């Protein structure tokens, strides 16, 4: 390794502790809010906590990243430090992969084991003694106890909105690649165009998904409460949607920075990290489309 030109160790920083406080207020506020809704008690304090926490977190992100960007543009960073960021981001994405892995595992277990068992198939089929009415199907429209978990009228047709969404999201990965290429060619006009298009595709995806959720709740009786199909459906698509939202915000920030004149063909780790994240979200969707909607 040639460049061991003194690794940059930042001076004291107040962003981490601000972040820790913000995180505490946000999550504590969220917990307190849910808690007080359940207890039917006053939730004002909880809302204040949650909102101020979220604000602090947002401020922390802006401040922290601004500091990093400023340092980077001052030329304090070395290729070694750049590698630290890259490795760091890759491992972070790996942790996200494992998060989704758990939910896909749940879906797999439910479909392969739990639901068939409840209908009397397989090694633990005795369970059907307790649910004589129950019939295993997938998508599972009617839960073993339909009084507690009201039945679903109909599931979402994969060949409508979900297919469109697939096209949108896969397309957005390509437009982002094009933006990256443009950045490397120093073609800033194209960069802005492709990046904006990517964001547009992402936001359209989100819009359609919101529409789909409303449709599910109001017309299909497909809700979180409608048994395990609804639970896994909303959990997987919901967390995916949350990631698309975060990804879109990241891309928006990148676009903003592009307009500020940031990034050079050699040094644009921020851009790459954002696009890795976006591609990751895209790959998750492909798994999701096949296992949640299609199969």
């Amino acid at each position: 390794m040639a460049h061991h030109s003194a690794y940059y160790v930042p001076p004291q920083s107040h962003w981490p502790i601000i972040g820790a406080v913000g995180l505490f207020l946000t999550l504590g506020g969220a917990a307190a809010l849910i808690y007080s809704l359940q207890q039917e008690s006053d939730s004002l304090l909880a809302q204040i906590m949650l909102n101020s926490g979220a604000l602090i977190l947002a401020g922390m992100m802006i401040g922290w990243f601004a500091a990093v960007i400023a340092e980077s543009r001052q030329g304090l960073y070395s290729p070694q430090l750049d590698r630290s960021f890259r490795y760091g981001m890759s491992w972070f994405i790996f942790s996200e992969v494992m998060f989704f892995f758990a939910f896909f595992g749940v879906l797999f277990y439910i479909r392969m084991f739990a639901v068939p068992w409840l209908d009397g198939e397989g090694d633990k089929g005795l369970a059907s003694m307790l649910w004589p009415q129950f019939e295993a199907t997938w998508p599972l429209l009617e839960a073993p106890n339909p009084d507690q978990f009201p039945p679903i009228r109909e599931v979402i047709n994969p060949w409508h909105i979900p297919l469109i969404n697939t096209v949108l999201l896969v397309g957005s990965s390509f437009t982002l690649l094009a933006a990256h290429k443009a950045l490397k060619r120093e073609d800033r006009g194209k960069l802005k165009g492709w990046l904006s298009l990517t964001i547009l595709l992402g936001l359209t995806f989100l819009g359609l998904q919101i529409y789909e959720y409303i449709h599910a709740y109001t017309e299909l009786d497909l809700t979180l409460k409608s048994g395990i199909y609804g639970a896994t459906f909303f959990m997987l698509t919901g967390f995916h949607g949350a990631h698309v939202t975060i990804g879109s915000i990241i891309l928006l920030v990148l676009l903003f920075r592009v307009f500020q004149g940031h990034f050079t063909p050699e040094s644009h780790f921020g851009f790459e990290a954002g696009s890795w994240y976006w591609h990751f979200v895209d790959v998750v969707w492909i798994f999701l489309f096949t296992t949640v909607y299609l199969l």
Partner: protein
Amino acid sequence: MSAHAETLHHGPAKGFSRWILTTNHKDIGTLYLVFSLIMLFIGGTMAFVIRAELFQPGLQLVMPEFFNQMTTMHGLIMIFGAVMPAFVGLANWQVPLMIGAPDMALPRLNNFSFWILPFAFTMLLSTLFMPGGAPNFGWTFYAPLSTTYAPPSVTFFVFAVHMMGISSILGAINVIVTIFNMRAPGMKMMDLPLFVWTWLITAFLLIAVMPVLAAVVTMVLMDVHFGTSFFSAAGGGDPVLFQHVFWFFAHPEVYIMVLPAFGVISEIIPTFARKPLFGYRAMVLATASIAFLSFIVWAHHMFTVGMPLAGELFFMYTTMLIAVPTGVKVFNWISTMFKGSMTFETPMLFAIAFIVLFTIGGLSGLMLAIAPADFQYHDTYFVVAHFHYVLVPGSVFGIIAGVYYWLPKWTGKMYDEKLGQWHFWLSFIGVNLTFFPMHFVGLAGMPRRIPDYALQFADFNMLTSLGAFLFGTTQLLFVYILVKTVRSGKPAEQLPWEGARGLEWSVPTPAPYHTFTTPPELDKE
């Protein structure tokens, strides 16, 4: 660049802000270690409550509902508050020193990882004062006891766990990146000290399984508040699904709590045997195999849930296999001692006790792995004995050994050897007095997580409680030794241990605030 030069050469800031705003791996290491010591005492006080109630049959001190809260919080605090942060603290101090790096790779993130923790535990501990009390469903929070039947504070428990998870993941990312990217020039992976190797693998495990924990607590939250049915058969879910997801996290978790201790022991034994570690490559390979196997054994905690026979057999076989690489480690340590020239300072004593008592715990683990026999052992004090043997004289002794071993380098002062020896012997006797009798009451039929028990278990329980009081109060001596060292210890030498090798000993004593700002030259033997 002026900012540049400044940061590299100034010493620590003065006062309170030093600790809150720091980006220095040594400061953050100290923070982690002090935090974990505090948590050890909080968790230990809860163990005192448990042992006091179990001193005699009958309900004396606490009500059953409070007892369950104590058991749950004791387990959670010891695992997430005491043992894990202590290892992160050791990693913070030692990894950069041992690989010749100026600091951790992402110093600000490092500070963030730490400061999340005090908030997370404030949230967790605050549940003790909520109406309905703290979580009372065991540290394993099996559904539906933790969903439909949980106290309202479960919501706070979920978010506290989320915070601990974020902290662990970020901390682990930092360790991994540091090891991959910050090694001194010329230091290859197979030159890494074993402590660094074990931590690398631990960090990988952390990043792989903490998100799974996050997923499972999220599903608990959803079942509690948002009407989902992940863990309810009435909606097509399965309570056992909870256990599968939980143990997919929690079994690797137990190795997360012991691999770094293996690393510490692998540093200490060669030093005091004055002989190079036997079988370095085998040690690395064994650690990696343990980590790999740890992903495919989780259901050995669930032998009695009524898994299909094939599953039962699969998990029994894979679990048994872990004995092989672990055995390799034990044999290598002993071969390192064999034909050495040993002395028995406090770190060495704790390390030897680690080998003996961890092996005892491991062997009882092997007994638990035999599925049909586990039908009798499961959820009895035999299991409690097993995991305290691997955790207390395992993980905790490993931490204590590491602290004694590196303390001279950290503080520049020598601890009082005589008091150290007292600390060791009292701990050793205390720990065995506490946890050995648990094997017997467990075999004789005492279930775990009960505040009151049948009369035939009375004698051994009293013995256990006495041992616990002895072991617990002995740890006050530990605190005294630490304070005394920092305050008035004799100055330590550059190389306090005759047989010690490695980069961390090449820096002055005490280790300056910034070390290896220019990477060290590695002298190749």
